[in-house]
């Protein structure tokens, strides 16, 4: 019943609009305004541009200032301070250009709207002007690029020797977090060894793998370099830690990496934001299928001392599941058993 009433209402509305439209068309024909070069609407449109400029300009400034803390994500990494600074410098430069060009773009239509007694200026070119507005943007862009290039080179240079290694393996639809253990060297891996109890495909015939362990949370120390070694085992994924200003794709068959230094522990950030629930997070930013939007991992940034304590408490894969080393060669198995007994 409601559907029927709505349909009737819409029909009525359409027919009214239709009538108004027909009437105004006929009126314009009678008045002969359709013969004119520019009708009265010309003025209205010219006014609208100015109104739009003022209205949307006010809205933009109001919202940008009011919501600043909301849309500006808290920062917790060293290189992030540099990229954030670049971001806001670029924002300032482009913001000025944005405003100047838009003021001109919307003010000219008002200022130079059609008048019968005026003739437009015949002004086909001016080489000097062209050169100016080729060279000036070129210089400005060059400055911006050089800043970006320096930052990019620093961020992507090889990680320091003493960086703490953490492996993130993306798969549908979660991240497996693997630590290299006390030797800080990840054991070798082979995707063909992957199974339900060996998510990362760790090759336990490599001695370095014996003390590798996994963790449900990415725990890292504050103020010390951390190297994420990133892999994917099925499709593309991408590690995105928004508070660390960190993003790197996870590619099957091609390990990638990203190193950084966290500057605030989770506790410090909680105190600063006055939000006891706050967590640093990792999300996936390369579409990977149905669960793309749910690949969450928490990063827990702690003081270095606390980190070392936590590290010592962790139990390697092979301690939790001795079956992993059952098929190894006798020598390797012996080595593994030593590791297991050390952790008992």
């Amino acid at each position: 019943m409601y559907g029927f009433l709505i349909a009737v209402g819409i029909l009525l509305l359409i027919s009214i609009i239709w009538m108004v439209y027909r009437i105004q068309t006929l009126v314009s024909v009678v008045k002969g305004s359709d013969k004119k070069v520019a009708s009265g609407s010309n003025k209205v449109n010219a006014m609208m541009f100015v109104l739009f400029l003022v209205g949307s300009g006010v809205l933009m400034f109001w919202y940008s200032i009011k919501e600043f803390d909301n849309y500006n994500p808290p920062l917790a990494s060293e290189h992030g301070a540099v990229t954030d600074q670049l971001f806001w410098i670029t924002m300032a430069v482009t913001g000025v250009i944005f405003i100047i060009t838009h003021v001109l773009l919307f003010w000219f239509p008002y200022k130079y709207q059609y008048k019968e007694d005026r003739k437009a200026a015949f002004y086909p070119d001016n080489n000097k002007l062209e050169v100016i507005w080729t060279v000036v943007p070129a210089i400005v862009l060059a400055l911006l690029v050089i800043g970006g290039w320096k930052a990019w080179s620093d961020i992507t240079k090889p990680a320091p020797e003493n960086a703490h290694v953490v492996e993130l393996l993306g798969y549908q639809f979660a991240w497996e977090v693997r630590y290299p253990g006390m030797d800080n060297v990840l054991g070798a891996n082979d995707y063909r060894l992957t199974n339900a109890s060996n998510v990362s495909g760790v090759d336990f015939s490599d001695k370095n793998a014996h003390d590798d362990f996994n963790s449900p949370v990415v725990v890292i120390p504050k103020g010390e370099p951390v190297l994420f070694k990133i892999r994917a085992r099925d499709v593309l994924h991408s590690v995105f830690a928004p508070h660390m200003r960190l993003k790197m794709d996870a590619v099957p068959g091609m390990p990638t990496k990203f190193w950084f230094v966290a500057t605030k522990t989770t506790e410090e950030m909680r105190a600063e934001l006055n939000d006891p629930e706050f967590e640093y997070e990792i999300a996936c930013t390369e579409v990977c299928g149905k669960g793309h939007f749910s690949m969450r991992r928490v990063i827990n940034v702690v003081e270095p001392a606390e980190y070392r304590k936590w590290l010592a408490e962790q139990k390697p894969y092979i301690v939790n599941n001795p079956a992993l080393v059952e098929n190894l060669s006798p020598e390797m198995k012996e080595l593994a058993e030593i590791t297991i007994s050390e952790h008992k």
Partner: protein
Amino acid sequence: MATAHTATHSASAHDHHDDHEHHDNFITKYIFTTDHKMIGKQFLVTGIFWAIIGGLLSIIFRLQLGFPDMELYWLKPILGGWIDDAGKLDPNFYLALVTMHGTIMVFFVLTAGLSGTFSNFLIPLQIGARDMASGFMNMLSYWFFFLSGVIMFISLFIETGPASGGWVVYPPLSALEQAMPGSGLGMTLWLIAMTCFIASSLLGGINYITTVINLRTKGMSFSRLPLTIWAFFLTAVIGLLSFPVLFSAALLLVFDRSFGTSFYLSDIYIGGEALPNTGGSPVLYQHLFWFLGHPEVYIVLLPALGITSEIISVNSRKPIFGYKAMIISMLGITILSFIVWAHHMFVSGMNPFLGSIFMFLTLIIAIPSAVKVFNYLTTLWRGNLIFTPGMLFSIGLVSFFISGGLTGIFLGNSAIDIQLHDTYFVVAHFHLVMGSASFFGLMAGVYHWFPKMFGRMMDARLGYIHFWLTFIGVYMVFFPMHYIGIAGFPRRYYSWTNFEFSNMYTDLNMFVSVAAIITFGAQLIFLFNFFYSMYRGRVASLNPWRSNTLEWTTPLHPKHGNWPGEIPTVYRWPYDYSKPGAAEDFIPQTVPLSATPESNLPHEQELVKLEKAIIADEEEVLVANESKES
């Protein structure tokens, strides 16, 4: 003089043309036509159809994003099993919607619908040619596009859903059926459809290039071409060089999917089994894809910029400022567009050194774009502006081009891109600079050339309402996305509530969705105006915008062959508006310089002598020919 000899010669030319005109029946006139004007209209109507589909798809996923708790049972009659028992949209289908929206809008609407329509319609009319170099290839071009559309349309309805890996269809996601249902038959159909589409683009592109080079009328030198033609010409060149690379990428993907090769696949464990593929690289696909993908942005944008240049000049009653600079910047964009592709891949894991190189190259391409904006502004300056709907949409385009172009400076900077890559900042950026700007170019073109297409005017007032609703609507949709993007919201997310960094802004997302629905609704005004005016609009005058270019010298309903008599000769560039000394504020390209001594510039006065000599020569030849005939 010129007019006199056209008249004397018109009779014989007309006879000749009647030969194949009266054979036209419904099928050869409207379906398998070789007339470039009808093919242009076919592209336009098909493009409009696809724009509606693409728009509707985006409305469905905007409902999910803006109103995540909404029960969508009412969509069940259309979407069937994709709405689950709780009334929620299936996450796999959400990805399919995003993918199809992208594919349809980029390729079917803004490539075929824009370039296909206006290159076909305008190239012969504005350069003074009877038709395209090959009418038959032109017809094939449309029908390959049509076939491609049919296949893509069918893929929307299959049980496993259409392709769902994003419009870029990165492998391994798109290569492995186990990864998601859309990578099965849906992806196969996507690849077949795109192959047809590439064939269509190439057939069209070869034709546009050949026609512009070979079939210009007498006097129409490259330095007298309207900027529209320059834009279509360069667009076709870009397409011709880049689409084959997409084809090769697709072909290798077909091999990986169906014949067990490992171009893109390596070390994969999926669905409980380790695949035998090793040695391939998913990054290879990204390089190949973006070698088309980035030029594609300009394939979409350049025609819109060309159309805008023409419309802004006509309605400012002023020559376009810096005609040569405009051409040089378009040439610059054309060349640079091929060497910036990897800025889409800064964090793909490729060598960071390459990132530095591509950052430098990318920011160079911002320079010609900036020059174009400044030239548009200077064209408006001290003009005598008439706000036709076409003009409004052109000014809107310039605004989007600025807004979206400036955010490109953030994204082209690899250090800043680390944070912004694949967030809503990118979505806002390309929807403004490429999506909305090109869409506005398309709209501007339709309003401006409708009188030439159908011999009738579209209603201007409905055009104004359509423009203001759409212009404000587009900003309401895409401007807030910048904030969402800076906050770090990732793209292609079914929902953001799983993360603390992105669980706010339900209000802003709701706002965006409502704005999107209103903006989409406003397009109904256009649809009504378009189809109603086609049959019932006011009959147009021959040159309603008082424009200089050649298409307005044809009859109201030009037949196949465009001009009933001789093709007019061109004596000047197309931008002689408001020339000092001239009585009218426009001088069409067909008016000889010798006929306008009062307004000629000093260097043109020199050309008059040359022109007179040529006209005299022609007259002699003509007289000689005619005496021979009789």
